[in-house]
Each structure stands twice: as structure tokens, then as C-alpha cells.
């Protein structure tokens, strides 16, 4: 609620300022307000994170003061025209809603509302679950909240930890204000609205009617990638929205010389430049358009320079500069981990392994020029459909891409005759927007299809204008084409339900487990994502346990594996010990080992590698194995568990809820050993552990992976008799029974 309230204040202040700056058009004011609000939020977080003051009260204060100042300036400038401004907006909304009477617009709007309700439900109930969210988008965000400042996490784990974070700061905004990660993957849903506004405003700028502009925006919103990525903590929708705002601002400024548009363009450019390095390529195309506006609308070099610096360059640099300066000072390369140079001349060397596939790979465009038919392998397959990497649908591939390409070709062909018309500028920006994808390393072409969201924003606007031309030329054909596009787009939204795909990175949207779940205190939202892709699913149980335990006693966790973000807990109660925070205790409270790759013990260590799994298994006196499965081992420090009764009870309840059959089986143990150690594997071991933690079993239970059992038996001998669980029918005499199938046998001394 606090997030909504503060974001609302930002939006209201920005909207009033749009009126004060006499910006025409509701969509245009919306883009301006959305861009200014996003920039303001990012700037507040940026300043506090860079100065190590990133706390909730500080963020609320700085945000209220900044947005309040903007509101005060806007109201003063607006004078007594506030009522007139409101009336203007209401009238524009009424005019806009008339467009919804058009059947195509109405159908798409209803479908978009239903599909986005689904998306919002997924955001609200499911935790962040995409691969990159949990590996490198949210990890620096959560660590920044924990340490109250930005931190570059271990680059040996992910070189991308040095990336600029402007897009991720929106996830930080929600997570810090709510002290809950539930809405961390909701920021992009909000920026999807900004992207749709940018489509509408740009389409209007190109002369499209209300209904065509709204139809195009609706079609953008029901693209599978917008829907699926809008529920993730990736940053491509946000980047595309900011790019759309920058493009709109540039086109409007070049056409009409509107200063507010130039300011929006500068802010949006700064937002984008602070998100990804390769987004700088298309941004270079914005600069000539801004300069064109300066030539057209300012008098004299001094006035032009003042406009350029104050409304464009300054806001852009203020929003993006920090990340580049930080990387230059901390890592010696502002573009870390990428090389910056021309030919043999290297200004900043690469931080990537030079023999790695990415460093060796040519840009995708070179491969595409060599094998043009490969384009069909991108478009016909609808690369990444159903996941966060793609799924643009037939309307994008069949209409937006060719119309955008035709417009670009036409603009180039008629450049001398027509000059830089808004359509020609938009077409040129459409071409520039394709650069991040075609310049990406060819080996990454399957997962970087999402960069095409950039041309999509502009392409849909161009499509809207083209549709109006067709309506004038051939109304029946236009109607038929509209029906075809709407049906295709709506059927094409089906991949929102896609989940089972062994290859692509699907964003889980299944709400069935949520529907079936009951609210209690022994489960967290992680339990709903056990079927998530790319090795995230098996970790859901582990994170669930750590989350539940962390609510009783915040844990310092020695974490391993590719996904640090899952360890912080849904309320950010836990910390990662091996990331080396200065205030960490001498020993971690819990050790978590995730076997996820071949070689050694299959575990990816990072940060301080002081507690290898092999060592932990050998220290039964210090660590107590609590959750041990085929791929994950969770050990708690014995001291922590033994001294905290509430924690013991909570873990026992969690084991009972997560493994009810195993606990039911363990309950049948008779007679119950009062001393010694039981070494067991599989779910039965977890059931017995629940009994021990509950105080219903005197013996200590040591869950073990089968490969560790013999070693643990040897180590446990110091603690009295050692018992092992096994099936019935073994030659030894059992000391206890467990249901009809299992027995406990004492190991001979």
C-alpha cells in the first residue's frame, strides 16, 4: 500500500507538471508523467543507495520531499487553472473511451484486462521465479536493502552483477517499502502500462486516430512476452517503455518544439542508459532527432545549447552516470565486463573469459547476413514463446516488423523529398531499436529475442498509423485485416499458460497451487513454484524452509548455487553470510548446498568458500543436517537449533507440512530410541527429524545422502549407539519397527 501511495503521489505531481508545461494530449501527458515518476523514483533510490542511506524512512522522506517539491512548483505555475486541467483530462478520457465502442478495440481491451488480471494474480501470489531474477537481477537489489547501500556482488558468480541497475531499482522500491519481495516482480507490470501509453502517444504523433492508437496499444499489451515478462523482475519491458517514451519525446520535440517532451526524452534516455550497456546503441539515434529539434525550434547556438544541456543531457547523465563512474572507479572499466575498443585498440579490457563462447561469438547480424533464412528460425518459431525471452505473436512478426521495415525503407527512399517527418523519424528509430538484438552475440540469439520489445513499441505505433491509411483507401479490407489481427493476437495470448518446456525459460503462471493452499505460518510463497524451470523448482522447498525458519529467527545463511536471491526470505529477514557483509557473525546459522552441475561435488560456491560441503558433513558436533534430499543439503548450526525452542518447533511443523507421509510413517516408530544416533536417507529421515525436533524422540536423527551414510555412521559412534533405517527382511535383528515396511537396525560397534 505504501508503494502504491508514494507512486501515486509521484504520478499525480508529474501529471500536474505536465499540465503546467501545457503538454497537449492525454496519452502524451501520461507518458510524461510516467517517465518523470519513474525517473524520480529511480533517482531517490539511486541517491540513497550511493550514499549508504538506503532505509525505508529515508526513502519515504526523500520521495515525499522530491515529489512534493515538483507538485508545489507545478501548482504554482498552473495558478488557478487546476480545475481546468482536471476538466481537460476528464474530457480527454471521455473522448478516449468513445474509441472503446469500436468492436476491435473493445474486444482487445476486455481480453487485455482479463489477461492482466491473471498476470497481477501471479505477481501477487507467486514469488519471483525466473532464472535471471533469482540469479542476478534481484540479488544485488536484496543485498542493497540488507546493507543499505549498493554492493557489487562476487563477479566470479555472475559478471553481470556489475551491470547498471536503473531497471532493477524499481524492484528495490517495492521491496524496500513493503519489506516484502512479493511485488518485486510487479514493477514491470506498471511499466508495461507506460509502454502502452508510449505506443498510443507515438501513434497519435504519427497521425493515427484514437481507435487505431488504442488498438495498437492493446495488441502490444496482449503479446505473450509483454504478459509473461511483465510478471518477472527482468528489465526489458521497463527498458522498452523508457525507450518508447524517449522516442515519443524526441519525435514530439522535433515536430513541435515542446520542451516538456524534450525533458521526458532526456529522463527516459537516462533511465535506459542506466539499464544495459548495449541499449546505448539505439540511444545514439535519439541524439540527432534532439539536435533536429534544436535546429528547428531554438534561436541561436546559446539557446540551443541551454536546451540540450538542461532538458536532455543533464537529466540523462544524472540518471545513468553513477553506474559508469562506479564501475570505472571500482573495476577499472565503466562497461564491465565488456571490452571497449576499436579493432586492436582496447580502451577497457573485457572482464569475461576470452575463450568463452560469448566473447568469441560474432554479432547475430553477421550470421543473419550469411544465412538470411535463419530469420525464419527466429520468427516462425516465435523465439522464446511462453517465457521471458520472447513470444511476440503473429501480429508482430507478420505486420509490425514488415510495416516498420517498409516505413524505414520508404523514409530512406524519400528522405530528400519529404525530409524528417515524424513518420520518417519513427521509422529510423524503429531501425535503431533493432540494434540491441542484431548486435547481440550470435550464441545468445535464442535468449535475447526479448530485445525486440524495443522495435515493438515503435512498430505498433507505425502500424496504427498505417491502419488508418488503409481504412481510408479500402475500408472493407481494413476491417478484415483488423479482425484477422485481433483474432490472431487473442489466440496468440494462449502461451500465458505455458509452463512445461524443457528448453525455453518459462515464467510460471500456474495459480492452481495457490487456489488449493491454506494460509498458515509454516509455508511461504516459495512452495508454489516447485515446478519452475531451470533448476529453480527443486530449490523451492529449501527456500520455503529457510523463509519459515527465518521468521522465527533471522538467519545468516552460507549459500551456494546460481540463485542467491531466493535465500533472503519473502520478508528479507535472512542474509547471505558468504557475501562478506562486515556485520556478519563469525559462523553462519545455516549452510545450504545445492548440487546443480557436474564435477567436484556439483556445488557452485561463491564469496567466502570457507564451508565446503565435505567439511560440513564431517562436523556433526557443529552442524545438524535438517533437510537432505538428492540435490540439496541444509545444515543448521547445532547451537542455534538447540538453544531456540521456537525455531525447533517451527522446523518440525514445517517438516510435518512438507512431508506429511514421511512424518506419519515416522510416528509409527516403536519403540522409540532414547539415545544414540539414527542415520537415515530419503523422506523417512525427514519424518524422523521432525520427531526429534518436536522432542518426541530422544535419539539424534541425521538425514544423509546415501553416499555420506557410511561416513556419518563412523562419525556418530561417539554419541552412543548408531541406528540405521532399512527395509524389512534384513538378516540383523531390528531394534524398532517403522510401519510394515521399515525397521531400525543397530550398527555393530
Amino acid at each position, binding site marked *: 500500500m505504501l508503494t502504491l501511495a508514494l507512486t501515486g503521489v509521484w504520478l499525480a505531481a508529474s501529471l500536474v507538471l505536465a499540465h503546467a508545461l501545457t503538454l497537449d494530449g492525454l496519452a502524451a501527458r501520461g507518458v510524461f508523467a510516467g517517465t518523470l515518476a519513474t525517473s524520480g523514483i529511480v533517482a531517490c533510490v539511486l541517491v540513497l543507495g550511493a550514499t549508504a542511506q538506503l532505509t525505508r524512512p529515508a526513502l519515504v522522506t526523500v520521495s515525499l520531499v522530491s515529489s512534493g517539491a515538483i507538485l508545489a512548483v507545478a501548482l504554482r505555475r498552473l495558478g488557478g487553472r487546476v480545475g481546468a486541467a482536471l476538466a481537460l483530462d476528464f474530457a480527454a478520457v471521455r473522448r478516449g473511451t468513445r474509441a472503446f465502442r469500436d468492436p476491435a478495440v473493445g474486444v482487445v481491451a476486455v481480453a487485455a484486462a*482479463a489477461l492482466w*488480471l*491473471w498476470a497481477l*494474480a501471479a505477481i501477487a*501470489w507467486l514469488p519471483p521465479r525466473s532464472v535471471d531474477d533469482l540469479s542476478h537481477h534481484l540479488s544485488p537489489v536484496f543485498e542493497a536493502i540488507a546493507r543499505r547501500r549498493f554492493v557489487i556482488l562476487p563477479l566470479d558468480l555472475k559478471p553481470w552483477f556489475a551491470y547498471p541497475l536503473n531497471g532493477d531499482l524499481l524492484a528495490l522500491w517495492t521491496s524496500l517499502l513493503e519489506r516484502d519481495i512479493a511485488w518485486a516482480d510487479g514493477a514491470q507490470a506498471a511499466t508495461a502500462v507506460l509502454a502502452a501509453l508510449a505506443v498510443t502517444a507515438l501513434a497519435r504523433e504519427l497521425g493515427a486516430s484514437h481507435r487505431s492508437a488504442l488498438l495498437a496499444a492493446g495488441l502490444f499489451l496482449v503479446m505473450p512476452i509483454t504478459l509473461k515478462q511483465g510478471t518477472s523482475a527482468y528489465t526489458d519491458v521497463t527498458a522498452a517503455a523508457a525507450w518508447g517514451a524517449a522516442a515519443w519525446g524526441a519525435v514530439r520535440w522535433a515536430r513541435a518544439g515542446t520542451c516538456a517532451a524534450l525533458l521526458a526524452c532526456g529522463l527516459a534516455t537516462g533511465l535506459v542508459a542506466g539499464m544495459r550497456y548495449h541499449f546505448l546503441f539505439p540511444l545514439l539515434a535519439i541524439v540527432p532527432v534532439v539536435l533536429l529539434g534544436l535546429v528547428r525550434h531554438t534561436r541561436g547556438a546559446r539557446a540551443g545549447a541551454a536546451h540540450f544541456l538542461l532538458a536532455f543531457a543533464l537529466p540523462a547523465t544524472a540518471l545513468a552516470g553513477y553506474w559508469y563512474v562506479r564501475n570505472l572507479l571500482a573495476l577499472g572499466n565503466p562497461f564491465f565486463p565488456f571490452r571497449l575498443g576499436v579493432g586492436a585498440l582496447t580502451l577497457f579490457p573485457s572482464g569475461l573469459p576470452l575463450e568463452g563462447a560469448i566473447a568469441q561469438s560474432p554479432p547475430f547480424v553477421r550470421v543473419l547476413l550469411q544465412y538470411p*533464412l*535463419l*530469420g*525464419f*528460425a527466429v*520468427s*516462425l*518459431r*516465435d523465439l522464446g*514463446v*511462453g517465457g521471458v525471452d520472447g513470444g511476440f*505473436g*503473429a*501480429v508482430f*512478426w*507478420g*505486420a509490425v516488423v*514488415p*510495416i516498420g521495415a*517498409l516505413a524505414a525503407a520508404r523514409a530512406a527512399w524519400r528522405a530528400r523529398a519529404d525530409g524528417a517527418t515524424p513518420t520518417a523519424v519513427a521509422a529510423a528509430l524503429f531501425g535503431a531499436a533493432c540494434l540491441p538484438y542484431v548486435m547481440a552475440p550470435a550464441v545468445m540469439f*535464442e535468449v535475447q529475442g526479448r530485445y525486440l520489445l524495443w522495435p515493438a513499441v515503435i512498430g505498433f505505433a507505425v502500424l496504427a498509423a*498505417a491502419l488508418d*491509411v*488503409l481504412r481510408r*483507401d*479500402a*475500408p*472493407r*479490407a481494413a476491417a*478484415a*485485416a483488423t479482425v*484477422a*489481427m485481433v483474432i*490472431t493476437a487473442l*489466440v*496468440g495470448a*494462449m*502461451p*500465458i*499458460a*505455458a*509452463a*512445461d*518446456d*524443457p*528448453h*525455453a525459460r518459462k515464467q510460471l*503462471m*500456474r*495459480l*492452481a497451487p*495457490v*487456489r488449493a493452499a491454506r494460509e498458515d505460518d509454516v509455508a511461504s510463497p516459495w512452495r508454489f513454484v516447485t515446478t519452475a524451470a531451470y533448476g529453480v523448482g527443486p530449490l523451492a522447498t529449501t527456500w520455503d524452509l529457510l523463509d519459515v525458519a527465518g521468521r522465527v529467527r533471522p538467519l545468516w545463511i552460507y549459500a551456494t548455487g546460481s540463485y542467491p536471491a531466493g535465500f533472503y526470505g519473502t520478508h528479507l529477514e535472512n542474509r547471505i553470510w558468504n557475501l562478506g557483509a562486515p556485520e556478519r557473525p563469525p559462523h553462519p546459522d545455516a549452510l545450504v548446498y545445492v548440487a546443480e552441475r557436474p564435477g567436484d561435488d556439483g556445488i557452485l560456491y561463491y564469496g567466502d568458500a570457507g564451508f565446503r560441503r565435505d567439511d560440513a558433513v564431517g562436523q556433526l558436533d557443529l552442524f545438524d543436517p535438517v533437510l537432505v534430499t538428492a540435490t540439496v543439503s541444509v545444515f543448521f548450526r547445532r547451537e542455534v537449533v538447540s538453544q531456540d525452542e521456537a525455531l525447533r518447533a517451527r522446523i518440525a511443523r514445517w517438516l510435518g507440512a512438507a512431508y506429511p507421509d514421511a512424518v506419519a510413517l515416522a510416528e509409527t516408530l516403536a519403540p522409540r530410541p532414547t539415545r544414540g544416533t539414527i542415520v537415515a536417507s530419503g523422506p523417512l529421515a525427514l519424518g524422523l527429524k521432525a520427531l526429534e525436533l518436536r522432542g518426541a524422540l530422544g535419539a539424534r536423527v541425521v538425514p544423509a545422502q546415501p553416499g555420506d551414510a557410511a561416513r556419518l555412521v563412523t562419525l556418530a559412534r561417539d554419541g552412543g549407539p548408531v541406528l540405521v533405517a532399512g527395509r524389512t527382511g534384513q538378516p540383523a535383528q531390528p531394534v524398532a519397527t517403522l510401519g510394515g515396511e521399515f525397521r531400525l537396525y543397530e550398527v555393530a560397534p
Partner: protein
Amino acid sequence: MTPRANGVWSGVACGIAAGFVAWALLVRLDVPFHYGTSDAQSDTVRLACIAAGRLWLVCTFVGIVAGAALGLGVRAGGLVARAPIAMIATYLFALRGVWGYHGALPGGGGSMPAAAAVVLVLLALAGGSAIARRAPREATVRATIVPLHLCLSMIALHFTVQLPYYRALVASFIAGLGDLVAIVLRTP
């Protein structure tokens, strides 16, 4: 625009549509065009996409050339203007994708039942005549009609090969919507 140019533009537009029909009837749909729910290998998918795309290029090119040649000889103004409008209905042949491969290896399906083909033809004829009948009786073919057909053909091309995937997702989609409704209504 001269009558001859009119005829050529009209022929090109009709040729693109006819090319799509030929493609839709010729393309192999018993192969995977997407990973979807299948465990098809990356190369298999890539080659299938390239083969289908190449066939579409060939069909469209032949359609354009043949259409332009035929259009040269046609002088009836009304027919020239309305034929490309009527031909829009031929993109209904994208529905052949309903019978495409959707994940069960080795590839089954791909062929459309004869009855469905007949229904599709009848639908295209009825739809085409309905669109054209209400179209303005102009003698001039607008320049937008060729890009329109190109776009519709490309939309239909992509829709055809993705339809099997969409079809495979229908059950999950409906179940997902059901869960959403249940949650929103707070029913157990």
C-alpha cells in the same frame, strides 16, 4: 494509375494470397516448429522453420510473378479492384495449422481432413464474396493493397505454424483461467 498498372497491382496482391494458399496446402505440418510441450531438438525445429519459410518465399514469389502476368491482361475495372479484397478470405487457410504437430513424437498429424478442407474452401468463398460485395466499386487499386496482402500472408504464415502450439495449450489456458476466477471469487 493506368489500367495496366491497376491490373498488375491487383494481380500481385491476388498472387500473394494465392501463394499463401499453395503454401498452406503444401507445407509439412507434421514437424515441430516450436519446442512447446515437445522434446524436439533445437536443430529439428530450426530446420523445419527454415524449410517452411523457404517454401513460403517460393510460393509468394511464384504467386507475385504469375499474378502480375495475369494482371497485365485483365482490363475489367471492377474485377481488378475487388478481386484483391475478396482474396483476403483465403488467409482462412491458416486454420490448417489446427491439424499440425503438437508434441507427440514421432510427428503425427499434419494432414487436414478432407471434410475440413471443403468447409475451409466454402468459408473462404463465402467470406471473400461477402467482403468484396460490400467493397466500394472503384476502378483503382490502392497502393496499400499489396503491403496489406504481404502482411496478411506473413501473419497467416506465422499463425499457421504456431497454431498447433496454441492448440496444445488450450486445456492449460482454460484451467488457468478457472483457477484465476476461483481465486478472485475466493471459492475453495
